[in-house]
């Protein structure tokens, strides 16, 4: 318990920021950007404060706020974070200032752009701290609307189709998710994630659902089947958001057409809402169902991991290539989630897989956002070019640019010494014993990803310098300063992952022990 409602303040701060940007930044894009940047730094400071005050000895919820909200429906204002939530809050807080800096090219209606961006951040914070379905759903949807408008208004030439697809896919997922949780509410009388998880753990969920939904009304469906149906309903909502392979077709369009600053948030933070949903909501509440459905789920995850890099290989557009590579990276997290749902397996393996998944979420957020930032910088320099084959030999005119982008690429590829490696190592170490076949097949993807990223490296940076790019401007001082912390963080996490794993340890062991 904390005297000051820190998490509420954290969620409200970007909303205040959005209002401030609209007022202060009206008519001047510089003022709008700097106001937004200051507010995002404030949020970052607050998240760091949370990080410092986070008690790493316990795996239960901290900074809890609890008050009745709508008693008639059993809806509470219930906030709290454990290590997982904390990590996601920190990630969102780091990404938004990056995205704001990467959006320096936005000049038209800039105040609205940055206000929407801050609203999106508020949606992220809200979703990562909520412990009640109703509350969580508000922010889940709230983050969708700014994202839609950011793509729709400032996106590329095919933004109309991209934003509509993004919206429709996510809405369909939300509808089934909402139905599932309404059914759970009707069976159990609560929307609280923790209460539902506890019921599931104590094997009370199935009897409750069976007692409420039997009889002729439901065509004689058994409780177990119905719960499975509810699981698939909730699954769809998250599967679209992450996304998992058959539900991913909105993603390359949306990532490619969104302005790069927004793509950074989409891939860095919003896709994590899906993985977070799997970890916080799906696995604790529907663990049993996940076990039953383990094989199909594993198949989805492996398909996501293996097929996405191949799709990325044939892309001509850097953003689309990175988009598919993002799908691949999050596939690992999902494989870990499905692997640790298994009823067998050693605690150590599960802990390792979960730790790997969490690190991977953070790393991918950081690295993918950095990569899209570099693409944004390229676009600014070339007037919108971002084809894999549009460049060549950039190494000569822009060595610093290529060096830093190379680091980000290698981090994404999982080179030891950089952040990507630690996460993937822990992941494979963890889920190899749990799911040997699936992880063996997934190894192919490591190779394909390496091929993909090295190809990009080669096509863009090496080779003869084309006439056109002989005067490709290198990074300016301001850009170097703003990129430096991100690159530094990649190194820090690469050599000292304990920095993050330390505070997470208690959460991980608590989480895994509840699974057993």
């Amino acid at each position, binding site marked *: 318990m904390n005297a000051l409602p820190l998490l509420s303040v954290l969620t409200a701060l970007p909303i205040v920021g959005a209002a401030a940007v609209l007022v202060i930044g009206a008519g001047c894009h510089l003022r709008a950007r700097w106001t937004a940047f200051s507010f995002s730094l404030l949020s970052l400071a607050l998240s760091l404060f949370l990080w410092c005050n986070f008690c790493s000895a316990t795996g239960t919820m901290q900074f809890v706020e609890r008050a009745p*909200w*709508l*008693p*008639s*429906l059993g809806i509470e204002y219930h906030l709290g974070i454990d290590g997982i939530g904390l990590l996601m809050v920190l990630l969102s807080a780091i990404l938004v200032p990056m995205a704001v800096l990467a959006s320096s090219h936005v000049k038209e209606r800039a105040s609205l752009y940055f206000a929407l961006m801050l609203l999106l951040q508020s949606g992220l914070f809200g979703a990562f701290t909520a412990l009640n379905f*109703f509350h969580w*759903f*508000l922010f889940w*949807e*709230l983050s969708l*609307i700014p994202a839609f*408008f950011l793509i*729709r*208004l400032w996106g590329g030439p095919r933004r*109309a189709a991209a934003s*509509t697809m993004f*919206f*429709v896919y996510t*809405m*369909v997922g*939300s*509808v089934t998710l*909402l*139905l599932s949780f*309404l*059914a759970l*509410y*009707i069976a159990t009388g609560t929307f609280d994630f923790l209460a539902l998880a506890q019921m599931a753990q104590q094997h009370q969920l199935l009897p409750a659902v069976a007692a*409420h*939904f039997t*009889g*002729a*009304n*439901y065509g004689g469906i058994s409780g177990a089947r119905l719960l499975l149906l509810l699981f698939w309903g909730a699954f769809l909502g998250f599967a679209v958001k992450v996304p998992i392979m058959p539900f991913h077709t909105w993603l390359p369009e949306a990532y490619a057409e969104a302005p790069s600053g927004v793509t950074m948030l989409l891939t860095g933070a919003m896709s994590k809402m899906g993985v977070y949903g799997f970890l916080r909501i799906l696995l604790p509440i529907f663990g049993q169902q996940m076990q039953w459905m383990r094989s199909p789920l594993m198949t989805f995850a492996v398909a996501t991991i293996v097929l996405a890099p191949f799709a990325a290989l044939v892309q001509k557009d850097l953003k689309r290539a990175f988009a598919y590579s993002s799908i691949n990276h999050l596939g690992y997290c999902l494989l870990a989630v499905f692997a640790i749902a298994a009823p067998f397996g050693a605690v150590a393996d599960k802990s390792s897989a979960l730790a790997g998944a969490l690190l991977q979420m953070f790393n991918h957020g950081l690295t993918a956002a950095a990569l899209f930032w570099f693409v944004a910088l390229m676009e600014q320099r070339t007037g919108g070019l971002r084809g894999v084959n549009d460049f060549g030999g950039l190494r000569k005119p822009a060595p610093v640019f290529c060096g830093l982008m190379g680091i980000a690429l290698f981090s994404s590829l999982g080179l030891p010494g950089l952040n990507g490696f630690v996460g993937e190592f822990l992941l494979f170490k963890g889920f190899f014993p749990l799911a040997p076949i699936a992880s063996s097949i997934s190894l192919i993807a490591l190779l394909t990803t390496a091929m993909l990223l090295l190809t990009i490296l080669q096509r863009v940076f090496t080779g003869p310098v084309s006439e056109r790019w002989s005067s490709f401007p290198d990074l300016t001082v301001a850009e170097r300063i703003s990129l430096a912390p991100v690159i530094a963080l990649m190194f820090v996490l690469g050599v000292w992952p304990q920095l993050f794993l330390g505070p997470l340890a208690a959460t991980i062991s608590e989480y895994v022990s509840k699974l057993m």
Partner: protein
Amino acid sequence: MNNFSAMNVSAMNLSAIDWSALFHATLPETALEVTALLVLIVDIAFLRRTSHWLRFRAAGILSFLGILFAAVCILSTQPITVMADGMVAITPAGKVVELGLLAITALCLFFTFDEDFTDHVGEFVALMLFATIGGMLMATTLHLLVIFLSLELLSLSLYILTAFNKRSIQSSEAALKYFLFGGMSAAMLLFGFSLFYGIADSCNVFQIRAVIDNAPAQDLHLIILATLMVVLGFAFKVAAAPLHWWAPDVYQGAPAPAAMFIGSASKLASFYLFWNLLPANLALPLLVILAAVSMLWGNLAALAQTNVRRLLGYSAIAHSGYILLAFLGNGDATRSLLPALIFYILTYSIAVIGAFAIASIVERETGSSDLANFAGLSKRSPLTAFCLLIFVLSMAGIPPLAGFFAKFNLFALFWQQQPGLWWLVALAIAMSAVSLFYYLQVLKHAYVVEPAETAAAPAPQSASMLTRFVLLLCALVVIILGCNPQPLLGLLNHALSGMF
């Protein structure tokens, strides 16, 4: 319910009526009636030759005073009574509905201030007040005769209001359709009422219910026929498919304040009356069909619309479908759905009134309320566009706006009571997702689409500061009620608990 049956034993007897109590009980309606007459006199006698600006404001302010007085009467003096065989039945729920009607009327009157579609300002405002009186009487009676009379008072006023824009042929066409369909539905309703009277030998709704509950088997077909007639009559009033044909035309053709009123106050009054009147479980299958068809038809037809007002008309049909879920509750538990019902209609009313006000602004600026005319609205007037965004998203049921909570609350409670009708909830939620598409079309035009090259330059800001302020206020209310619905919901729960 039992409290009331005792009072019905004595047949109607004029000498037994306490006239002073009756006056007290109907003071709000009387006050509004006097206000309406005053508005007429002042406008015709003194303001005839002055500008629309002054006339609408004078009539509006006079009406506000009357409405305020009526509201104070309801809140402070109007006792909870049933008298004269249920002809006057003041209940807590009825009072809440009356207050809601007054608030909605006041809001609609605000948006007449910028209008100039008619030279008969006094008549227009007075008719709106008459319609409100009709609605208020509907909320405070349990007697078939008075129900029918007050319903006709409301309906006739609305027919005339719809036809009020004499410069527009659409307005006349809409009114004619409304009137013809309305006349037919009134006939059906009256037929149903007469059958009920024949069955129960009473006009009191509670007595009729008691008789129906214990009716011998051979009367059943008669009761079913009567129920069918009444339900169809009401389906027309609330524009539920398949008796919705008038709605799109009226929403498009009627003057904006009249359309607002039809979309909000008339719905509130009709739904509440329906709630009191409904012969409980008999109508269930029919209502299920009405609800499902309304959701499907309204939402799917709205997809194809190119005129915002017409689109709102079809979306109103869909919303009637959602609202009908509240009538499908389970036996005695049904009454717990009433707060959800009223909450839904109130929040929807704010959104729909706001949307119509904005459509009317666009109409005055660009000549029509076609989707294409909304292009560039966000550049012309960002505030109006923002308010439109809030209203439209609230109707679509996007969190954290009031419309989302209203739907969530209603659907959750309904499912709890009628688990067997889970597919109706699934359909409602799925259809809400479909509705997003056409609501987003409106926003797309307001925010994204550039005005066509050929389009004439829009007239300068036609909305007064006051209008824009009220719009913003409505938008804020929608946001606040969405984030924190508990105060209003708690109030409704408290006021309506235990009543019907």
